């Protein structure tokens, strides 16, 4: 007998496959991040992997890159089975990863960041700076990724930092590039430039794995698209054989309803008036410039924009975490002088923060202690200097029922709850605070569909009760679905404020990208 024909076949196939993944499973405590995943990626292909937050995309990529070891299953790179993977081995096999959070050292120069680990040296030890800079310049020119090799990374814009990341992997001779949500932090122009780069890389014979949760851009750039849901591959489609709607259905598991759950109500009087405020960001330059708007009772004002256009700083100022440089903020006609969280909270402003683990919850505290966080000095929860534990218990049990927080145990440590239920604690707390103004900053980030609907419904309810709600979100659909008015922030400025019924998704999109600007007098301040 000759060779086993199937075996022979696999070997041939290996020649055209850059990566082959067979039955990968990876379990984290309490979460199956990857569940029996298999696929093949051809050489020279742009392969996209999409899925909601938490679908397991990043875990999968970290396995390919050797940062994680799978609990079971095999990875083949360039036809070779990988055992005990490590980033070093992945690099040797030509895999390069551009992380979602840049892996750069701000204090180092561009060149030092790029050559780190594979430095040019004289006699094996002393750095050869000249040669390093020269070679960085060369690949930078070859792939048309313009950077100044001697500049410190901390002085670069986000887009340029990403170029440095890509150069890093190209410098290591990567033939397979993994880009993890590369456009999340980019401006539209930068995204376009990135896509040009990706196409150029493909022409040079590189394989690109593109991870995203944005359907449009995936359809634009990818050859084939794999959809991940709950750690499993639910489908792999060629670009031509699928559509946005098709992909969305696969991602979510059912048809997505782009329909608003709200009724319309008549906005009331102004409760929050922001006039010409300018805010200085962490790098000492203004990140919010001369913004003005009014927020009325019984309305939801949505702030749309791409991440990093000043939303975070605006929210921090409105909640008292960051001082404003100039301008005024008035709550119920009272000018705010003291920018501290307690002072602003006292004025009736509640806030659902964007990062619940960092700002929303004390994770080691019990559920009931988190439900009263910030209100511990109120009469129901304390008697003079002592905590009123029976009052706290009774209150918590009520809220756990009302907001369906699971498991129904007020004495559990909050860290043991799922993300969705943790978010419910925050929503319950902030809404029960009975604020006049509710600032909801990315209130559904990282939640599953059920939890998202829950949060949306609560926000709309609050509007019905006459509250003024400021909604900041990166998800345009969320903004479109919930808002009465929509403000668009771009590069620290409001480039448009529209009534919901006059706004089209397309127009908002153009404003977000900075491609259009509404004349000042037309803004619905």
């Amino acid at each position, binding site marked *: 007998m000759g060779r086993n024909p199937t075996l022979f076949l696999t070997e041939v196939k290996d020649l055209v496959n850059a990566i082959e993944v067979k039955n990968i499973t990876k379990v*984290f405590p309490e979460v199956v991040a990857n569940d029996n995943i298999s696929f093949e990626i051809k050489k020279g292909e742009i392969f996209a992997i999409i899925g909601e937050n938490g679908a397991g995309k*990043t875990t999968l990529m*970290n396995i390919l*890159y050797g*940062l*994680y*070891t799978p609990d079971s299953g095999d990875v083949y790179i360039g036809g070779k089975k990988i055992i005990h993977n*490590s*980033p*070093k081995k992945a*690099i040797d096999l030509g895999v390069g*990863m551009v*992380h*979602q*959070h840049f*892996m*750069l*050292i*701000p*204090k*180092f120069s561009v060149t*030092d960041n790029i050559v*780190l*680990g*594979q*430095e040019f*040296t004289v006699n094996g*030890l*002393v*750095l050869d700076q000249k040669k390093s800079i020269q070679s960085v310049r060369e690949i930078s020119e070859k792939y048309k990724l313009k950077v100044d090799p001697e500049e410190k990374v901390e002085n670069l814009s986000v887009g340029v930092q990403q170029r440095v990341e890509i150069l*890093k992997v190209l410098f290591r001779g990567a033939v397979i590039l993994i880009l993890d949500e590369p456009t999340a932090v980019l401006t539209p122009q930068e995204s376009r430039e990135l896509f040009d780069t990706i196409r150029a890389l493909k022409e040079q014979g590189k394989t690109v794995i593109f991870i995203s949760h944005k359907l449009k851009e995936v359809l634009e750039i990818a050859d084939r698209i794999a959809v991940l849901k709950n750690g499993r591959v639910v489908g792999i489609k060629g670009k031509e054989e699928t559509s946005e709607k098709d992909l969305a259905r696969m991602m979510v598991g059912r048809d997505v309803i782009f329909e608003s759950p709200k009724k319309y109500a008549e906005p009331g009087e102004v409760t929050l008036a922001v006039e010409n405020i300018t805010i200085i960001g962490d790098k000492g330059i203004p990140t919010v410039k001369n913004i003005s708007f009014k927020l009325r009772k019984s309305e939801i004002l949505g702030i749309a924009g791409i991440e990093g256009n000043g939303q975070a700083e605006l929210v921090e100022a409105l909640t008292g975490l960051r001082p404003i440089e100039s301008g005024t903020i008035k709550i119920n006609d009272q000018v705010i002088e003291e920018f501290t969280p307690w002072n602003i909270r006292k004025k009736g402003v509640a806030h659902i923060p964007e990062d619940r683990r960092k700002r929303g919850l004390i994770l080691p505290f019990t559920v009931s202690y988190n439900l009263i966080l910030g209100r511990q000095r109120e009469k129901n929860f304390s008697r003079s200097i002592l905590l009123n534990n029976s009052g706290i218990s009774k209150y918590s049990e009520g809220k756990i029922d009302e907001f369906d927080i699971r498991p129904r145990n007020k004495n559990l440590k909050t860290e043991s709850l799922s993300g969705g239920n943790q978010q419910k604690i925050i929503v319950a707390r902030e809404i029960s605070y009975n604020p006049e103004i509710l600032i909801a900053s990315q209130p559904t980030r990282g939640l599953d569909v059920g939890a998202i609907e829950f949060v949306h419904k609560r926000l709309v309810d609050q509007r019905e009760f006459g509250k003024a709600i400021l909604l900041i979100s990166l998800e345009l659909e969320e903004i479109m679905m919930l808002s009465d008015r929509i403000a668009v922030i771009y590069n620290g400025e409001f480039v448009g404020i529209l009534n919901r019924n006059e706004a089209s998704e397309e127009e908002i999109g153009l404003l977000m990208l900075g491609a259009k600007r509404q004349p000042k007098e037309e803004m619905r301040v």
Partner: protein
Amino acid sequence: MSIIQIIISVISSLLKFGTPLILAGLGGVITENAGVVNIALEGMMRIGGFFAVFGSYLTGNPWYGLILGLIAGAIAGLLHAYISVSLKGNQIVSGVAINIFALGGITFFLERYFNTTGHSPSVNSFIDKPLFPILVKIPVIGEIFSVMNIFVFLAITLPFIIHFYLYRTSWGLRHRSVGENPKAADTMGINVYLVRYIAVIISGALAGLSGASISIGQLSLFDNHMPAGLGFIALAAMIFGKWKPIGTLIAAFFFTMATVAQIYIQTLAPHILKIIPRGFFLAFPYILTILILAGFVGRAVAPAADGVPYEKGEKL
């Protein structure tokens, strides 16, 4: 005494008393640039100081003492590395524990081998063993070379060698990358644990050497009070020197100046001590460090990942 004589004598004192600070401070520089905080410098100096005397006592040769002190410090460093790198323990807790351990442990050894809780008997040391005996004969500046034993020599050369290592070599680049962003370093194929281990062990060795520079460099015995807080001043010098080797050298001399000034004023102008008591001179480095950190005098920034345990496979 003529002015020149005083200056020469002050320089000699600075070299002599600055040496332990520089050596231990460099130990701090090495480990903190790799992202591991070492507040156990004090304890490691104590361990090094004792074993240096012990080695010299056993062999009669101070060189063996030096080597034993260095190795003992390195072993203490290994322990700190094991706890803070492998076990990802709290680095400060580990440092405190080593200090506590050194305090009791060395007293135990002192009692066990020298039957005292005071100080050890005299051993052969590097006192009056200048490294360049010929240069001592040079008039006027010869005094400087008379104090220059092996420890002093290392203290004034190592900062430059370590500077070259950290900023001019590929290993140094990797070393600093681990202190700034270990995850980035890991993704570039650098073995974060290995770098940190080596850094902390070298840090322990330098602290051990520093302890030896007191017990068999300045004295010929181990006193149970050693090193009497010098490890903490070394820490202060490292911060004052902005986590850089040459900065630490300068800071160490600056701090030593306070002690030296106090000694000279005592002999040359004792009436000044009536106005400004000794305690103020001695407390000066510590108060100054607080003022610097509080931003009243310049600002100091630590390596970005200093004190943060690194866990491979940590969820992103």
